[in-house]
């Protein structure tokens, strides 16, 4: 550091030898005057928020904002109109088909109408198939095969009726065959098994007991009732004797 000061000794001397510049004579008076004027202006100064929300500034700024908003929308709509229609690519319409053969159109229309009919009829058929299932389950539980045979014949009649109805309504042969196949699988099961309560619950949505399912309880006459009771007594006595023998 001392070396540096020696190196620049001449410069340092020259700078230290400079005459001191003094403040002007009226410095303090001027300063006092300026301080007083600053104080006055400070007192008059409004706060930042007062300045912003004064009506003289608020009204023109609001006006400017509204003008800006209006211009924005006007310019925006104009810009859409200014688009050259020859330069815009046409919209692709998915609902329009380009068809060369008229027969194809007719076929398609027919297919569409068939599909619509199928959709309309399908809930009715489903309902009926459910009924069929129920009935078939009843058949399985019943002991009398002849009754079951009659039921089956009745059910076949119902099927033929449905077939006629569907043909009348213009149901397609393919669709009908599908329905028929579902019905036959239910009715023509080779060895019907006893329906459980759970199955009944699945089909109807309500729990049904076995007694309730036996809806074909025959109303017996007094004579028939007596005969049945006698038979029951005989069976009981036989059971007792067999027990005693054992």
């Amino acid at each position, binding site marked *: 550091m001392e070396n540096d000061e020696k190196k620049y000794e001449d410069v340092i001397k*020259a700078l230290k030898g*400079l*005459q001191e510049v003094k403040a002007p004579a009226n410095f303090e008076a001027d*300063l006092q005057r300026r*301080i007083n004027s600053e104080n006055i202006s400070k007192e008059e100064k409004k706060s930042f928020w007062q300045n912003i929300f004064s009506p003289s500034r608020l009204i023109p700024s609001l006006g400017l904002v509204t003008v800006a908003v209006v211009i924005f929308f006007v310019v925006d709509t104009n810009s859409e109109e200014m688009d050259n229609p020859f330069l815009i690519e046409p919209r692709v319409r998915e609902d329009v088909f380009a068809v060369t053969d008229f027969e194809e159109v007719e076929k398609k229309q027919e297919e569409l109408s068939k599909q619509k009919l199928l959709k309309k009829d399908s809930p009715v058929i489903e309902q009926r198939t459910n009924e069929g299932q129920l009935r078939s389950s009843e058949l399985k539980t019943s002991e009398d095969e002849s009754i079951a045979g009659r039921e089956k014949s009745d059910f076949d009649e119902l099927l033929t009726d449905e077939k006629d109805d569907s043909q009348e309504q213009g149901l397609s042969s393919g669709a009908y065959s599908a329905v028929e196949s579902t019905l036959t699988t239910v009715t023509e099961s080779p060895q019907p098994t006893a329906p459980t309560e759970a199955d009944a619950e699945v089909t109807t949505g309500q729990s049904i007991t076995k007694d309730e399912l036996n809806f074909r309880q025959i109303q017996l006459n007094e004579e028939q009732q007596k005969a049945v009771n006698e038979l029951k007594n005989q069976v009981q006595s036989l059971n007792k004797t067999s027990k005693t023998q054992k």
Partner: protein
Amino acid sequence: MDIKLRELSDEELILEFQKNNTEDAFNILVQRYKNPLTNFVFRFLGDYTACADVVQETMIKVYMYKDSYSSVAKFSTWVYTIAGNLARTEYRRQRRQNIFSINDYGEEHQTYDLPDETYRPDVATDSGIKDEIIQKALLKVKETYREAVILRDIQGLSYEEISEILGVNEGTVKSRINRGRAQLQELLKSIYKE
């Protein structure tokens, strides 16, 4: 009261002004610092009228923002910092003004040489001439180096005080001072030859 105040240090005076708003304390500070600050600002700017305005502005800032002074720092470094900032702002403003005012008048691409009014042989004395030459050389030194050189070699402040005023570390202050001195030496070669 006035005599008592005169015995107080700078820091005690500003504290008195802060706490009790004693105008006399402020006036004593003005009396103490008006000449050193005028000298510093004039050597930096080279314009006496602008220098007087800057010093007055500095004193007004001290008066208005007296509460922002903390007793941790020395009053001299605080007041020199304010004066230095204002002087730098004024110097840049003047430089901008000169650039635009010269080129904006007259025909296109035509520039004018400014008459050198700093050297007037009819007014200047022998020592005065020397001062003028040094002042001219000082103004040619880079702004950052010039400020450091003035504070050290003309105002006689310590490196520590200068580093506080300029807001840089002492090493930087020393290097700035040396570079400034080197530039000055180069500019003042003719004087040393004589």
